[in-house]
């Protein structure tokens, strides 16, 4: 038998793995330069990282016995092998920053946490921030300049730049100069003061140049709405802790709006009746969203009906007309809003026209909440984008040949605006600055490789304007320039290191080096939030918005295009973590089927996966359908960001590209295609089951019931009838409590768990075989009718039962109980009988049917070195992040200072729904939550005594509205 001393085929976790220098250089040619230079700290880190990378890549066969130590030449300052370092930076989406803290091991970023000091994060993260790690190590990132999509040398690139400058920017004749006329710069929304300054300098140098701002998933209607309402650029910032009644109209308040993490946090603070007074949320929407599921009342309304609702609402609120007509719930809702004058807020989604936004602003003013439930601030954008510098204008100019040189910075319009590819042919010189060779990069003449956001200096404002500093987490892994520097280099401005440009921007706010370092350490610059302004409501805005004032074709069916919750505008397409993350409502992965309402499915006799042909004007698409309970009749929903052509090995040709439908004219036609159904990978296989009885698993009730009997959800206490001896208690007893009132089902915890615990991605085919590996999943329960169900989320993870059924059946004792109450899974002892999984009532155990981890498309250095990488044929499951517990235990034992244990899911949760700790410590939050009258255990009749308990969900229903 193989002695344990040699790694018996199992569980290669990546430790220091060695390579000689020439091996290094052979595998990483760019390293030659690095080796010859003097080492600074980050370069050392990168050296280590590369050494690890190559070692890890080689060492894919688990546990090669004698891998050497690579010892640094000079010790990297501040880096102790085996001790994590944490650096603050920010994750920027469409211009708005979300502060994050990046955990390093031996100089390699391995985990992202939220930055508590940042108002846009408050310690929580969203899915995209969690998945950053994979993007950072993504082998498909840009590695060098491209010319028409073909690899080119830097010399050629610089040459091309000079030619461009000589033709476009340099003085043409003595008679008339045209410095910069015909030079266009296209960026996403820019909130970064430094980037703004950089572009401003270019504008100064080339007065003829024009700067366009555009985002695929834009918020320009919101901005224009604000402009209409207040006569100037503003941003309206709600404070949900103050709002008693919130009306969310087709809203993305908790889903994806800038600052959604903060909003979700504030909202959740008012959701648990045990810990405060509840607010009430009404949601009116066409297709279910997180906001809708979190609402106390969710009303289904097609866009047309929504317009009518807003019309009547404005009539009622702005002119005190008695509500007449419209849906029967409108009256009570309006009364409720009026009843809470000064504590009511209405939020409208970004898809609606500016006029409607103006009307909503007017209604909010009329409800008198300004200064309390919402505030009007100056906008965080460096320069508020206006219609004139929007993309359509640019494209007209291109088609008319008025554009001679185009710089596209970090956006991918060619994929998102099909027309642009043609327009680009009229532009002599087009250059893309991007960190990956995406559609635009290969469609333009030149692609300048940028560094990843985590390898770059910079800054960006959050939704409230607070500035977050962005500092590189490592030397560019695959090369790539800094965005600011690259931009200036292209137009021939003097090249300055990005750090100096950022430093210069904040010279006056952070004069001393010490201030600067403190700001870098905290990740934010204090006192930079946008000031509130006393802009007055324009009279024009408060006119009643009648449905006629914003005409919309009542044609059936209507196609609603929404960004994919995780791939967003498509930027996440090459990230397998995002691809395989179940969409919150449909639980679909690796595809974007057309979401259709149940009644349409009945009429057209469609089942999940049946293929339809979608056509509108020139746009055509063939894609499977997915029945979405609770979707407005007559609306079909398509998710954008799929069907990428140049995303990378993972993302190419996954799903269907629906961008062509965005501005396609004409009515929408849906025909059932002849061919057989396309299987759609989905992680919840009872999608069609609609329980009419309230679920025993995800318990819930109304505030009235709670007031009647607070413990009404706890159910009858099962007598302790177990024949087994309860395990004795150790020094601590770990336990977890999950507040279903706070959980909004955003899946951040799932991704955090996947990153922290090296959980492999299995791919579409394996998900179709029901072999997904997530240790933590979010179960979705529908109740009521398919057309208008109530939906509930419930995070489901290993319950760490005190009487664990899995432990008694394992023939080799690979899963046992430890004295702290952990249900321990020992991978290297597991022989894979799978009995434990069969025996688990919660089905939270996952089995490695193949060597999933070894087949992943990611370098080994991107894994968490503190967690074993599981091999083929072993079982795995949630460990309560035992590596973090062990670290804390050892540190406490060694240094005598108690360390707080925070599990990965708990740390990521934006609403603090998860509390974890020692359930014997009366002061601990988890103990208080478990004492709550709402607390209950899942499947109590199984007699497993779970250490994970839930707080049942209470909904603050409006008694005037019959459910």
């Amino acid at each position, binding site marked *: 038998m193989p002695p*344990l001393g040699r790694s018996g085929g199992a569980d290669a976790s990546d430790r220091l793995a060695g390579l000689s220098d020439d091996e290094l250089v052979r595998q990483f040619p760019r390293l030659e330069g690095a080796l010859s230079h003097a080492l600074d700290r980050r370069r050392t880190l990168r050296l280590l990282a590369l050494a690890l990378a190559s070692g890890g890549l080689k060492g894919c066969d688990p546990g090669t016995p*004698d*891998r050497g130590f690579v*010892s640094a030449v000079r010790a990297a300052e501040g880096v*102790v*092998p*085996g001790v994590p370092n944490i650096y603050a930076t920010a994750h920027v989406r469409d211009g708005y920053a979300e502060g994050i803290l990046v955990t390093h091991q031996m100089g390699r970023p391995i985990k992202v946490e939220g930055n508590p000091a940042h108002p846009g994060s408050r310690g929580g993260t969203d899915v995209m921030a969690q998945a950053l790690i994979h993007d950072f190590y993504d082998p498909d990132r840009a590695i060098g300049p491209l010319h028409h999509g073909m690899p080119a040398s830097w010399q050629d690139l610089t040459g091309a730049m000079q030619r461009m400058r000589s033709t476009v920017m340099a003085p043409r004749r003595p008679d008339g100069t045209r410095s910069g006329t015909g030079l266009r710069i296209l960026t996403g929304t820019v909130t970064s003061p430094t980037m703004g300054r950089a572009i401003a300098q270019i504008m100064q140098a080339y007065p003829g140049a024009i700067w366009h701002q555009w985002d695929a998933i834009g918020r320009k209607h919101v901005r224009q709405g604000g402009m209409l309402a207040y006569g100037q650029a503003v941003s309206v910032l709600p404070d949900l802790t103050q709002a008693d009644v919130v009306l969310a109209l087709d809203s993305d308040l908790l889903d994806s709006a800038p600052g959604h993490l903060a909003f979700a946090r504030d909202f959740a603070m008012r959701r648990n009746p045990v810990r405060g007074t509840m607010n009430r949320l009404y949601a009116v929407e066409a297709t279910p969203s997180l906001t809708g599921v979190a609402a106390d009342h969710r009303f289904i309304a097609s866009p047309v009906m929504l317009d009518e609702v807003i019309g009547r609402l404005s009539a009622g609120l702005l002119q005190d007309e008695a509500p007449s007509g419209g849906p029967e719930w409108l009256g009570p809702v309006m009364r409720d809003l009026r009843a809470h004058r000064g504590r009511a807020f209405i939020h409208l989604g970004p898809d609606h026209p500016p006029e409607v936004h103006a009307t909503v602003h007017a209604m909010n003013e009329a409800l008198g909440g300004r200064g309390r439930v919402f505030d009007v601030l100056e906008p965080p954008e460096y320069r508020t984008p206006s219609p004139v510098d929007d993309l359509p204008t640019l494209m007209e100019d291109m088609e008319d040949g008025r554009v001679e040189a185009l710089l596209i910075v970090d956006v991918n319009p060619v994929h998102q605006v099909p027309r642009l590819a043609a327009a680009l042919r009229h532009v002599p010189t087009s250059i893309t600055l991007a960190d990956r060779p995406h559609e635009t990069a290969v469609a333009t003449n030149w692609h300048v490789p940028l560094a990843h956001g985590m390898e770059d200096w910079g800054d960006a404002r959050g939704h409230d304007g607070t500035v977050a500093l962005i500092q590189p987490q490592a030397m560019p892994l695959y090369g790539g320039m800094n965005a600011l520097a690259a931009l200036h280099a292209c137009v021939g401005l003097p090249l300055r290191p990005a750090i100096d440009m950022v430093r210069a921007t904040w010279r006056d706010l952070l004069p001393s080096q010490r201030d600067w370092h403190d700001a870098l350490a905290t990740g934010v610059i204090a006192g930079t939030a946008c000031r509130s302004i006393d802009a007055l409501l324009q009279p024009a805005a408060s006119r009643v918005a009648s449905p006629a004032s914003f005409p919309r074709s009542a044609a059936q069916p209507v196609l609603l295009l929404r960004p994919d919750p995780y791939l967003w505008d498509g930027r996440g397409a090459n990230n397998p973590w995002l691809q395989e993350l179940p969409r919150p409502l449909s639980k679909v992965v690796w595809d974007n089927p057309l979401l259709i309402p149940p009644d349409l499915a009945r009429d057209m006799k469609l089942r999940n996966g049946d293929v339809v042909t979608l056509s509108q004007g020139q746009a055509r698409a063939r894609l499977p359908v997915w029945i979405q309970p609770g979707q407005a009749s007559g609306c079909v929903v398509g998710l954008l960001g799929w069907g990428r052509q140049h995303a990378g090995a993972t993302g190419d040709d996954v799903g269907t590209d629906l961008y062509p439908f965005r501005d396609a004219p004409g009515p929408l036609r849906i025909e059932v295609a002849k061919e057989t159904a396309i299987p759609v990978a989905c992680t919840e296989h009872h999608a069609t089951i609609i329980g009419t009885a309230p679920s025993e698993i995800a318990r819930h009730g109304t505030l009235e019931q709670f007031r009647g009997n607070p413990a009404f959800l706890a159910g009858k206490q099962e007598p302790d009838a177990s024949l087994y001896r309860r395990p004795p208690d150790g020094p601590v007893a770990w336990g977890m409590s999950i507040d279903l009132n706070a959980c909004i089902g955003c899946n951040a915890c799932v991704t955090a768990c996947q990153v922290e615990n090296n959980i492999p991605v299995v791919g579409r085919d394996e998900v179709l075989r029901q072999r997904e590996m997530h240790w933590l999943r979010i179960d979705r329960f529908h109740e009521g009718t398919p057309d208008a169900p109530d939906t509930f989320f419930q995070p489901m993870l290993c319950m760490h039962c005190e009487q664990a059924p899995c432990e008694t059946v394992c023939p080799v004792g690979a899963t046992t109980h430890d004295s702290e109450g952990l249900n321990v899974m020992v*991978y290297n002892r597991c022989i894979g009988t799978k009995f434990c999984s069969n025996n688990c009532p919660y089905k939270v155990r996952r089995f490695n049917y193949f060597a999933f981890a070894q087949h992943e498309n990611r370098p080994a250095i991107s894994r968490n070195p*503190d967690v074993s990488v599981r091999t083929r044929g072993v079982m795995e499951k949630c460990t309560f992040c035992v590596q973090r517990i062990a670290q804390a235990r050892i540190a406490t034992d060694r240094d005598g200072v108690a360390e707080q244990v925070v599990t990965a899911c708990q740390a990521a949760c934006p609403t603090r729904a998860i509390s974890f700790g020692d359930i014997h410590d009366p002061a601990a939050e988890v103990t208080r939550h478990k004492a709550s009258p709402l607390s209950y255990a899942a499947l109590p009749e199984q007699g497993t005594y779970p250490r994970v308990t839930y707080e049942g969900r209470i909904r603050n229903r409006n008694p005037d509205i019959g459910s």
Partner: protein
Amino acid sequence: MAAPFTPRANVIMTTCLIGIAFVVISGCMVWFAWPYTDYDRRVGWTVEQAVPFSHQHHVAGLGLDCRFCHSSVERSAQASMPPTFTCMTCHSQIWTNAEVLANVRDSFLRNVPMTWQRVTNVPDYVYFNHSIHVAKGVGCESCHGNVAAMPLTYKARTLTMRFCLDCHRDPGPQLRPAESIFDTDWHRDAATPTPAALMARYHVGGRNLTECSICHR
């Protein structure tokens, strides 16, 4: 018709049966016993290194402390190997052109990390933490042997799971006073506190040290 068997057949048959039984049984014995052998565990084997570093010379001879090179042993899970810079602090003055040190100088000048072969290694799924053992009075020698007596470093203990468990079941005898932890040639003597006393001093034994989660994650 002749009988198929002569009387000798019985003897042959019996011998064969006994022989088979013997082979099977001894086979199993060997199979069980093999992993216990020092040979299988590579105990006492030196490993070829880029530089023939002598612990005997540096520790016993020059009296260097373990922590001079393995600097993070008290702070981190890993004891860590010294950067080339550490070697060069002395060897830029002495033995400046010794042949055996060529690789070290080379690494320093060309800025190329040195690679050391592991001598004492545990599988990747074993999460051994140096700092806690050192903090709790387990001497380096307990696992690494008397390296001060090793001209060339070799593996001194079997490091089987049983080896770890023996100590985790009863840590007392392996503990030593704080001042002797880095003494590679330390032995219990009359002055040494009793195991029980040391356990108490280091607060060892508060919890069960044989649980899987102590070493495996």
